[in-house]
Structures are given as C-alpha cells and as structure tokens.
C-alpha cells in the first residue's frame, strides 16, 4: 500500500471501490426491482418478465376490495408520523439542553433511553398493549402507538442532540447574555437557530421511523391500522404486484422526507459557510 496522499491510488483502493459498489448494488438492487415490477401490466405477476406497463396496480391499491383500507391507513400513518416528529424534536432538544448540566439522575435517564433504544420492538408493543389492557383503556394509534413509537424515536433524538451540542460553542450564549438578552431570548434567537440543522436531522428520524414503524405498533395501534400494518397484512394475503405498488408509494414518501431534510440541511450549511459581506448580513437570520 502506498501513501494515501500521493496522486496514484493504491491497488487496494480499486478493490475496495468494487466491494463498495457491489454493496450499494446489494442495498438498492432488490428495492429497484420492486419499483419496476409495480408498473406491471394487468396480467403481470410477482416477478419478471414485465407483461406490459401500466398503473393498474396503483389503481388497485385505491380500490378497497383488494387491499383493505389503504387510504385510511396512509392518512393515519402520516398524521402519526407528524405527531411523532413534533414531539421528538421538542422533547429531544430540551432534554439535550438539560444534559449540558450535571444533575442527579442524569445517568439513570441516559441508560433508560439507551435500554429503550435496543429493546426488541415487539416487547415494547406487548408491554404497552398489556398496560392499556390492565388499565381498561382501549389501544389507539394516536395514544398507545404514539407512546410506543416515541420510546424508539426519542433515544435517537437524544443521541443526535448530544452530537450536535458537543460542538456547540457556549460563547454565543454568554455574548447574548452580556448584551442583556433574557433566557428566553437567548433560547429563541441564539440557541435554536444554531441547533436548527440538528433539529431537522432529529425530525427526519422522528418522521421516517414512525412512518415505517412495525414491531412496536403492531400490538398498540388498536382497531385502525397504520400503513406498515397494512403492508404486513398484504405480505401474507396479497400475491399480486399491488403489494409492490404499495411499496413504491410508501418508499416515495420516505424519499421525499429524506430529500427535504437533507436538502434543507445542505442549504443551511451552505448559507452559513458563505463569507459575510457586510455588517448587516452578519446578523443571525431567523
């Protein structure tokens, strides 16, 4: 192996590049296949060859007989994901701020969150379901499933805030305080704008992890299904490309969320890295 800095790449670089390429193919290849297959003609089956191209199976998705209540499940999943997103961002940010100071019980909360993160999802669902049953409360997607999903998104949110806050320069806060800002003003106009890209990342985790959550939601969503439950039902009942159409639609929503989040983080970082031209533009933008 030669020096990495020299212009000529070592042989291992090419070997590893090929390995990486194969891994990416392994990661995305099967997924692309089902996106293509979801455009099967009406007589097409679950595998290649394509028998014509059509939107037939997307159509079938919205006509209820075949696939259950897709539109309802989709609406519920979206609402739930937005609720989880908002709660995850709000709770993670203030929890992250709390961990900047030492306090009795910090380690307990930290390890509770980590345990919650690696707890098998089915056990969380079972526990929440049984708790509601014991209390005589019906499980509902917007209550029990919301809580069960938060036990999974909040630890991620907390760990991301740790990473963000570890690079946070407290001099900005002190400067604001010296200039007479109140605690609330410092939080709103100094801390939040600096944390904003990190909050978008937390939002991305909150939304997508909730939108696709299955093991924790299975036993807690009550009578009305969320989308992953609908997909799960289809994997065992539906043996037509409608299943792939559902996969394509679902993944499209995830990809839009990822693109929005990563795109806005990239734009913010780019704007921040621009040299400051004059004094007026040095003011922190809202």
């Amino acid at each position: 192996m030669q020096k990495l800095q020299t212009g000529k790449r070592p042989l291992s670089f090419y070997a590893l590049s090929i390995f990486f390429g194969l891994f990416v193919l392994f990661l995305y290849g099967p997924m692309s296949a089902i996106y293509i297959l979801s455009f099967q003609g009406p007589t097409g089956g679950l595998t290649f060859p394509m028998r014509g191209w059509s939107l037939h199976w997307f159509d079938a998705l919205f006509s209820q007989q075949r696939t259950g209540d897709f539109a309802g499940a989709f609406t519920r999943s979206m609402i739930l994901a937005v609720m989880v997103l908002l709660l995850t961002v709000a709770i993670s940010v203030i929890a992250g701020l709390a961990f900047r100071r030492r306090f009795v019980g910090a380690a307990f909360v930290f390890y509770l969150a980590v345990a919650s993160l690696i707890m098998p999802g089915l056990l969380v669902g079972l526990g929440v379901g049984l708790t509601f049953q014991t209390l005589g409360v019906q499980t509902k997607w917007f209550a029990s499933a919301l809580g069960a999903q938060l036990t999974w998104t909040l630890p991620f949110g907390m760990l991301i805030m740790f990473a963000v806050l570890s690079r946070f320069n407290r001099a900005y806060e002190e400067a604001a305080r010296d200039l007479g800002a109140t605690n609330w003003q410092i939080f709103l106009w100094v801390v939040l704008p600096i944390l904003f890209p990190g909050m978008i990342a937390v939002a991305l985790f909150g939304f997508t992890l909730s939108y696709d959550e299955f093991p924790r939601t299975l036993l807690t969503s009550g009578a009305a299904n969320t989308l992953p439950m609908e997909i799960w039902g289809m994997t065992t009942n539906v043996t037509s490309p409608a299943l792939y159409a559902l996969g394509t639609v679902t993944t499209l929503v995830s990809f839009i969320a990822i693109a929005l989040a990563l795109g806005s983080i990239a734009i913010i970082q780019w704007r921040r890295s621009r040299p400051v031209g004059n004094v007026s533009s040095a003011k922190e933008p809202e």
Partner: protein
Amino acid sequence: MKVSPALTSYLQIGPLLLVLLLFFGIPLLVVIAYSFFQFDGIDSVPAFDFVNYVDVLTSGVTLSLYLKTLYYAVVVWAITLLVGFTVAYFLAFHVQSLIWQMALFLLCTVPFWTSNIIRMISWIPFLGRNGIFNNALIGAGITQEPLEFLLFSDFAVIIAYVHLFTLFMIVPIFNAMARIDKSLIEAARDGGATGWRIIWDIVVPLSKTGIALGSIFVVTLVMGDFFVVKVMSGSQSASIAMAMSNQIAMVQYPPAAASAVILLIVVSLMVAAILRVVDVRKEIAG
C-alpha cells in the same frame, strides 16, 4: 421568576423521562407482572406463579428456538461486521474528498429511513423459483433447474437480515474510524508497517467502540426479530420472538410475557458480554 439551575434541568428532562417511564419503564414492569399470571386457556388470571417459566424452560421447543435464533445472530453478526468494517474502512481511509465521503456515507444510510418490511419483500422477486437470480443462472447456463434453496430458507432469512442491518454496523464503525488521527497511519507506514498490520494493530483497536456498538445493535435486532424470519423462511423456520408473537396472537399473554422476560435476560447478558469486552460508555456518553 427565577428558576434554579437544578430545577431547570429537571423541567427540561421531565418530558423525556415521563414518556420513557410511561411507555417503556412501566410497560416493562407490567410484562414482568403478567409473566407470573396464570393462563386458564381463555383469560389471564392475576397470580404469582412460576408455571409459565417452568413451561418455557422445560419445553423442548425452547432450546431449539434459542439455538436457531442464536445461529442467525452469530452468522448475521459475522457477515455484517465483515461487510460493515470493510465499507466503513473504505469510506474513512480511501475516500479523501469530504463531500464524497459524506455523499457515499448517506448513500449507505438512506435505506435506514425507508420501510424494513418493503426492503425485506423486495427480495422475493429476486430469490423465487422464477426469480431474477434463477433466471440469470439458467440463462448463463450455470444450472439447468432453478435453485430451490434461495427463497423460503435460512439463506433467504440471513440475506434479508444482512440487507436490513449492515448499516447499523457501518454508522458506528465509520464514526469511530473518522476520529482516528491520520498521522498515526502515516507514522506506521513510515515505520514500514504493511497495510494489514496497520488495519490489525491500529484501525481495529481504535474503532473497537464502534464495532461494539454496531454489534449490540445487530445482535439485539436479530434476537428480537419476528417478521423477517416468518416471511423469508416461508414459516419453515422460527425465532424466539416469532414464537412469542404467535402466542400473543392467540392471546396467551402470560406465557408470552414469560418468554419475553427470558428473552430479555438472554439479550441483556449478550449486551453485557459485549460491554465486558469493550467499554463503550465513554463513547456514547460523549
């Protein structure tokens, strides 16, 4: 109104602690309580009885379920570690442009934000009797008959696990590797160390916290899985969590709760064993 710093910390950590206690801590205690209840064939009857534990521990099925699940966990752990380490090593040490490094890293993590169930079922058109692999193999004249072992087999289960969980290895290992001082590698190279020596004596020891974190994720995910093994083995194989989900479907909550508690103990021991080898506390606590 002046709020003391200590009180501020508790107000800030309050929402996180509340959600974790209500939807993780208490449900866990409820599961433990249910594991001592009696099951009369229809209902769960409150009691303090070890009968569920005796049933689980004396059942011949339990041992074979654990052996099967451990087999999956060990094989998937070894493959994801090898692949994850190689990919992270390539990204951290061979991709020199920071933008490219970020872009390729994101390429590996994007699937994390999409549905696991969809990614799993995307293997079906690939591995089936008339699937893409078999058609390709027959087309190339490698086999005459389609290979039967590809889908609905251990092979399919392991492929799906590796597909779903490798990024849980890549992210923490890459994180650890990104922090390794490049001058250490330079110094070793100037001292005449070969590429393999550098990997083994410098990169591996310095990224062991990442390896441990990734291992914890992969092991707990495989141990707690019930849906991959069900779909990808065509219900021909089983895991502990899948047997548990079958019990839950038949509302046999006390036996399911006892299995859950035993699974939890086993998983905790595995995590503890990993933590004994590598202390990751400093890593995640910042």
